[in-house]
């Protein structure tokens, strides 16, 4: 039985975003607004950057507004004007990335105008853009969302978000399943998954936190991680990436969405987030922290694993 999810408020939100963007551009408060616009395929949406008030009408918000737009503030900022404030449409999950980036000196709050979106969920990458949002077509990350309403934004449309449905928390379920396996079985699972990898690096490209200009894994003096898409190199790459994202990734799940080989990448990131929460009571993305869990310490940290 597919349970439909109420997204009727998205129409009102679209209107509100358009009005706000128009106002901002007209008043010159921002030099551009990053948001979503309809794309060629029916029902689909794509990122757009507008710097003219009349383009504000292009903006939409729909269940197909999946992209994490934070990316356009850092790595993909070529089209963004260098001066002035930037307005950006953010879902709760995207906001967490922005918060993380602020903690890592990549963004400054005062240079941003945050247009928050109350979000009931977006579509999974496997669903057609035109389909309605249901318990089946919703993106897995939305089943575990704890930020339907983004906090601390400059503007949030005044709409009433329907109470979110209780959905099966897909990552937690999968992590629990894997943890119950033996190491040999887990290794077999991940071996199978990583073997599929073709090293297209789409995961890296889309990740807001992979902002290094030169990735460690591209270096050849020394070659820390084998760069060819062989199983050994693939495994190393995904382990290294998960480690680098530990304590930073807040779960926008873009890596998993863009993976052409359907590797459950966010699973690794969620596992690390879970462990860090258990070990150090740290959860990424809620406040701008000078130091993440792995760049600080407590003298009383657990060391039961050390002889």
């Amino acid at each position, binding site marked *: 039985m597919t349970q439909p999810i109420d997204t009727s408020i998205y129409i009102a939100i679209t209107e509100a975003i358009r009005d706000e963007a128009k106002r901002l551009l007209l008043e010159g408060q921002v030099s551009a607004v990053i948001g979503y616009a309809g794309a060629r395929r029916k029902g689909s949406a794509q990122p757009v950057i507008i710097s003219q008030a009349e383009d504000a009408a292009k903006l939409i918000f729909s269940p197909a507004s999946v992209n994490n737009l934070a990316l356009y503030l850092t790595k993909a900022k070529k089209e963004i004007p260098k001066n002035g404030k930037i307005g950006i449409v953010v879902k709760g999950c995207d906001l967490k990335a922005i918060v993380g980036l602020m903690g*890592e*000196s*990549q963004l400054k709050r005062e240079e941003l105008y945050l247009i928050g979106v109350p979000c009931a969920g977006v579509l999974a990458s496997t669903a057609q853009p035109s389909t309605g949002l249901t318990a089946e077509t919703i993106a897995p990350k939305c089943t575990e969302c704890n930020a339907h309403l983004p906090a601390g934004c400059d503007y949030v449309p005044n709409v009433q978000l329907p109470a979110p449905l209780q959905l099966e928390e897909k990552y937690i379920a999968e992590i629990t399943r894997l943890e119950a396996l033996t190491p040999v079985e887990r290794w077999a699972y991940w071996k199978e998954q990583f073997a599929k990898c073709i090293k297209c690096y789409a995961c890296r490209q889309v990740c807001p936190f992979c*902002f*290094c*200009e*030169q*990735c*460690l894994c591209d*270096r050849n*003096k*020394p*070659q*820390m991680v084998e760069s060819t898409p062989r199983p050994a190199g693939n495994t190393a790459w995904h382990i290294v990436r998960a480690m*680098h994202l530990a304590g930073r990734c807040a779960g926008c799940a873009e890596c998993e969405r863009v993976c052409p080989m359907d590797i459950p990448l966010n699973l690794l990131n969620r596992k690390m987030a879970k462990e860090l929460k258990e070990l150090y009571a740290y959860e990424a993305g809620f406040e701008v922290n*000078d*130091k*993440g869990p*792995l*760049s*600080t310490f407590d003298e009383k940290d657990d060391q039961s694993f050390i002889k």
Partner: protein
Amino acid sequence: MSRIGVFVCHCGENISRTVDVERVAAQVGKLPGVAFATDYKYMCSDPGQNLLKKAIIEQKLSHVVVAACSPRMHERTFRKAVESAGINPFLCEMANIREHCSWVHENREEATVKAIEIVGMMVERVKKNRVLPTITVPVTKRSLVIGGGIAGIQAALDIADCGHEVVLVEREPSIGGHMAQLSETFPTLDCSQCIMTPKMVDVANHPKIKLYSYSEIELVEGYIGNFQVTIRKKARSVDEDKCTGCGLCMEKCPIKKIPSKFDCNLGMRTAIYVPFPQAVPNTPVIDRENCTKFKTGKCGLCQKVCGPGAVDYEQEDRLIVEPVGAIVVATGFDLYTINEKPKGSMIKGYGEFGHGKIPDVIDGMTFERLASASGPTGGKILRPSDGKEPKQIVFIQCIGSRAREKGISYCSKVCCMYTAKHTMLYHHKVHDGQAYVFFMDARTPGKSYDEFWRRSIEEEEAVYIRGMVSRLYQKGDKIVVMGSDIAVGVQVEIEADMVVLATAIQPQKGADTLAQKLGISYDKYNFYSEAHAKLRPVECATAGIYLAGACQGPKDIPDTVSQASAAAAKVMTLFAKDQLEREPIVARVREAGCVGCFYCKKVCPYGAVEEKEIRDRQGNLIRVVAYVNPGVCGGCGTCQATCPSKSVELDGYTDEQIVAMIEAL
């Protein structure tokens, strides 16, 4: 292409006994990049170093690997040698095939294979080594001395006499330490206070010495040549500048029955007090735990009688920061007590000796106070229990020391001699008394020491009994000593009036905490570790910190004074230059790769990472990257392990070098 030279050392037989060194040289010689490989009996010897230098020149070597002992032992030696042959010292590496191989394995085949692999690893590493220029940093020519006992006093005076400023920090209200407590000293029997107090006064009057008494070290930051030391000056409740040392406050203080720590609880002191009459500084301190004013708010007599108005109840602890270039640690020792120790403590007390509850069983320091002319009995040997003169006195040596069951396995070094001295002092003062000494071995190495010990037996008629004591118990007003004489093979029982225990020497309480502040290492007993047991006995492994006296291990006064002067000499050597060369093992930022996330800055324990703005020619800010101040960087490499893009690299431990080693496996 690199031309690597490999030199395999036999270390006499230390390596060649278990490692086939010729085979190692032959095998390693075949590795790509190795141009020359040989073995030699003693690489560290002069001929060995000459062999190395000659090979570098003749074979036009570009890098060198010496396979020998631990780099902690001879890395400096060989780096110096290659430098004199014209190669940057950091292109020389050592492969440890002694401590990590020949000494820990018996099987020759296994050890040889392992040695080949170790050397192979270092060959791959050295290929990736880079020329590193020496880094120079300025030297603050002021020194900190921690501890105002004889060691600290000697070191402070030596350094100050050389014209450099000294900051001397003492935990107690007065300097003087344990030596001020002693009565007479072996082997000359000169009065301890007579030779000690003039030195204390010298410290007080020296224009180059800044004395912080009743103070402790709070925090140490920085590095050799440039330390920032925060000192906690505890609230003395008496203004040192105003106090004239008249002593009226002590006379009037109504609380007079506080056991004096200086007199080993034999004598009493007041709540406002100086520990002993010759104290330096001669400024009293209020013991706030026992003072009525602090306990109830009433009294205040001392303030009323103080002419200059020096008594200040409101005084608070003060934190003072002192910049210094070198630190001498001279925190001294503490005595083992036979009292019951808390459960789980490595050290145990002596239940068989009554756990310190028999009043006339005392330790050596208490005996010193009894024998001291300025002590609580005016130099008369009297029993603490009833004030009678003991006619039968038993000394027992090695209490705590050399007793691994009690938690300490080392020899405390001074007890044999001071017990011999005690028997003499006793005989001089109680002519009709008899002293007995239970001992295992008499350890008397030292100039005129054995003669001194023999004198106590032959002239002062002490009876030495070779054998230990099993139990002590009070019987009436006597103490029954159950011992044995192993030479005769019989049990011995003595009904003694007093028993003196030569208890072990231990580091001061809190020695480990101070070591952690200083970043120096210590052994399982908390004695501080020297950099090298033989060749660098007064230096710590941490540059710029030196050791003097019993904090490093049990020592008598002559040894302590020698070591203190040696430490002072080391400090003066450091101060002889204006600039200090330091190992260039520091982190460097590859600006091209740095994205300015500043994870390095977040984890740096030294605060060495700064933010650096990169601007274009017009002065527009392009981006902000990290910059590591090489003078401040300690060289731990935590930044590099944390940097996501590996844009900061620790020279000498680059990823390239490490990965080369892993790949060589």
